[in-house]
């Protein structure tokens, strides 16, 4: 009540507080006259985003239709949640979702731990040149396509490949890396980490570069060992960025890496290695079931979105880190 009285223009008393709301009403318009060129410059980007990120979302309608390419989105009949029902009733769905969660989960966990540890190790190196070279080298595989990596790995891991030759040279049993379900998961996770840990290492190194050197000096004066410094200065400094990386990667919990699995898997490892994306490729794309493919894609996006929101809330609450 008070505030309404205050903001009412004719109020004679307290002129100065009354003026503030009035001017704040006028301000946007003034600001607009000043900033419209900036908005205009922003417009193309917004339009492009709408055009290429939001308009295609209209295609999600396909998930609720029995989509036939000839009839198009507007001509295909609606079937409600039929495709979602089909997805969950499909006999293999449970196994496929479980595989995806296991493989993606392992990738997320180790994809965070490995670069975390590696960045700390790399940070301790004094020879800048060596550090740079290693940093670049571990980043390199990130740029190689899985079509090529898949062929190389298939060859290296074959029964007479270099890996098994080495194993038998040191007296171990050769391993059927790509044909045994459990080893397949292992191979997939390790090769993925190998390919991608360089990227997050760089992110963590960037965070480490921002640590105030005086902290280390102070710790040294207090007699802290190298390990203690790592434990109490380096690692806490990396936690926020680790939380960000972890939060963002949680959205990928249902993306176990189509390119990779598709180029490595075979019928022998269907039970342990078949993931949602390869499953959808075979069911939906190869058999022209576009609606079903869209439904699964939508399901994946929804789960990803929910997980990101939850983990972001948790991160904001417990680690105090805000991205948005």
């Amino acid at each position, binding site marked *: 009540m008070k505030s309404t009285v205050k903001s009412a223009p004719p109020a004679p008393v307290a002129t100065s507080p009354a003026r503030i709301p009035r001017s704040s009403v006028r301000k946007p318009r003034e600001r607009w006259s000043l900033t419209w060129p900036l908005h205009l410059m922003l417009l193309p980007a917004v339009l492009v985003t709408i055009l290429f990120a939001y308009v295609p979302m209209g295609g999600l309608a396909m998930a609720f239709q029995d989509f036939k390419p*000839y009839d198009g989105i507007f*001509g295909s009949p609606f079937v409600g949640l039929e495709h979602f029902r089909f997805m969950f009733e499909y006999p293999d769905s449970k196994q496929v979702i479980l595989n995806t969660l296991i493989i993606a989960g392992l990738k997320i966990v180790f994809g965070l731990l490995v670069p975390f540890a590696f960045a700390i190790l790399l940070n301790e190196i004094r020879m800048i040149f060596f550090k740079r070279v290693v940093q670049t080298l571990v980043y390199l595989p990130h740029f190689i396509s899985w079509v090529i990596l898949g062929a190389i790995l*298939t060859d290296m891991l074959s*029964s007479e490949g270099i890996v098994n030759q080495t194993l038998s040279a040191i007296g171990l049993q050769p391993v059927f890396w790509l*044909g045994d379900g459990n080893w397949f998961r292992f191979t997939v996770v390790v090769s993925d980490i190998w390919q991608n840990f360089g990227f997050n290492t760089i992110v963590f190194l960037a965070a480490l570069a921002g640590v105030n050197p005086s902290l280390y000096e102070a710790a040294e004066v207090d007699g802290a060992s190298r390990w203690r410094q790592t434990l109490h200065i380096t690692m806490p400094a990396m936690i926020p960025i680790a939380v960000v990386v972890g939060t963002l990667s949680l959205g990928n919990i249902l993306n176990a890496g189509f390119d990779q699995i598709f180029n490595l898997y075979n019928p022998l490892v269907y039970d342990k290695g078949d993931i949602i994306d390869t*499953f959808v490729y075979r*069911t939906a794309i*190869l058999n*022209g*079931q576009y609606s079903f493919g869209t439904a699964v894609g939508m399901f994946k996006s929804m789960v990803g979105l929910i997980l990101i929101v939850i983990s972001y809330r948790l991160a904001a609450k417990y680690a105090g880190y805000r991205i948005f």
Partner: protein
Amino acid sequence: MKRQVALVLVLMLVFLAACSNNGGNSTEGTGGEGQGQGTQTEDPGSNKEEATANGFKDGKYDPPISLTTVVGLDQNAAVFKKGESMEDNVHTRLVKERLGIDLKYDWVVTNTNDAYKTKLRLMLSSGEKMPDVVRYRGDMETVNLLLDSGQFMAVDELIEQYAGDLYKEGLELDPTIWYPITRDGKKMALPILDYAYNGNQTMFIREDWLRKLNLEAPKTLDELEVVMDAFVNQDPDGNGKKDTLGLATGFKNGFNTWMTDIGFVFGAYGALPGSWNPGEDGTLVHGSVEPKAKEALLRLRDWMSKGYISQDSALKDEVGGSEMFTKGQAGIMVGPNWIPAWPLPDLEVNVPEAEYKAYPLPTGPDGIAGAAGNNPPVNGYLFINKNAKHPEAVLHYYNFFFDNLANPEPDSEFALGFAEGYDYAVLDDGTVIRDNNTAKEHAELFPDVDLNNSLPNPFFYTLTYEGARIPTLYADSMVKAAEGGELVTPYEKMEVGGRKEQNIHAMKVIMDQLDVYHKNYYMGPLTDTMQSKNELLSKLVNEAYNKIIYSQSPPEEFDKMSDSWHKSGGEQITKEVNEWYEEVK
């Protein structure tokens, strides 16, 4: 606010426009279908009269007519002389001059990333007017879309009246050629013929290994095992290591593949996985779940455990499988007649002393051999617009190529190729140049041709992708050569003359055992149950097959798999497949 309102309005307008546009289409579409049926029953008759009235006389339309089409330029077709294009080149001029057909292209795209297919599909879904004739080569899904669009006419009467003898003979070679494109008993497209038997596979064996180990070429599976055992355990490559294999195979892509196919082991037991075969009662049964397949699987399981086939076979595709042979690691490989041209030259590079030869496929316990093959000689289709003014022009066109260019007489106009200065040139001493490397030394004979590229080949400009192919011509000429016949016609000299001896011999081996090959009898569109269940079923089969072969599952797994195959939709699919079969056969 105004802006926002404007924006919202604009968006709504766009949306509405899209809606109404499409609404129009769908009504057009249904109307079209109705019309289409009308055309099927009545029009051909009236067309015929029109055609004769419009005067196709002495092999030519006078005055010239125009025929519209669209094209996606593949890499080999996109090579032109300077100043020429798809719309105007030696091919279009020839067709206009000789046949009075003026080819018009509604659009031309470079066919990368399936651009042609995409554009065709867009045309279909936007209800754009189709040209007089549409060609398509590729996935059956698009073929079915085109067939079911209601834009194209039935061709039964056209073929009856206008198809030339060579085209008719080619079509009659295998009546099942019509199965995939038959709708309600009507033939809905013109098949573009290709050479027959080219995909049939037979067995190639390292002759030098057989000789070294004093072995006979195997005729049965049992004999094959003896040979494979020797190849694995008696060090045929003489390097003192046990690093050799019996059979090169890769079944990552299944048990019915285009090279290094392992299907012949199943065929020897009378089953063919991955295809629909007529059973004893005449109905179609799925080869993957026939009880006979189990015995073949157990045989393969034995081979795997004895090391006759590589442990990596399940991880290799066709090319990967063939590498075991070309590396000189395996002594036997199954493949089509042309593998001596590719990829087997790699073997000669890796193992210079290697010799190999084709042999008939081994027989099983009942004395039969079997493999996938003998599929109808078709590669692509021509769809004729139901509103085309001159639907018969397409056949006149195709006939012209069959009569004059498919198998030209010696010294006839097209004996050496399509056009001098394009795909060939003749030197003063009579030598014929056909490749751009030699052509570089005689650049003056190829005016306006970029000799850093391959020579422009007008055959690739044609409506039918590569002129006309007489299905049996390739196999017949090869067999003739294998039997010591003299190469007379330009085709024989060109196609067979340059072939390796092993290639020619392999074709003869294949032609001599033609009855062991069985085609996949289901050629219809994906049925509803197939769409939803195909993946599940093929996964069931592939997983069980592989695990049995690798001894990761007991043999009984096969019965379990077969059982759940039937229960999870296989039975329904079998029913649908047989309904289709009843209709077309």
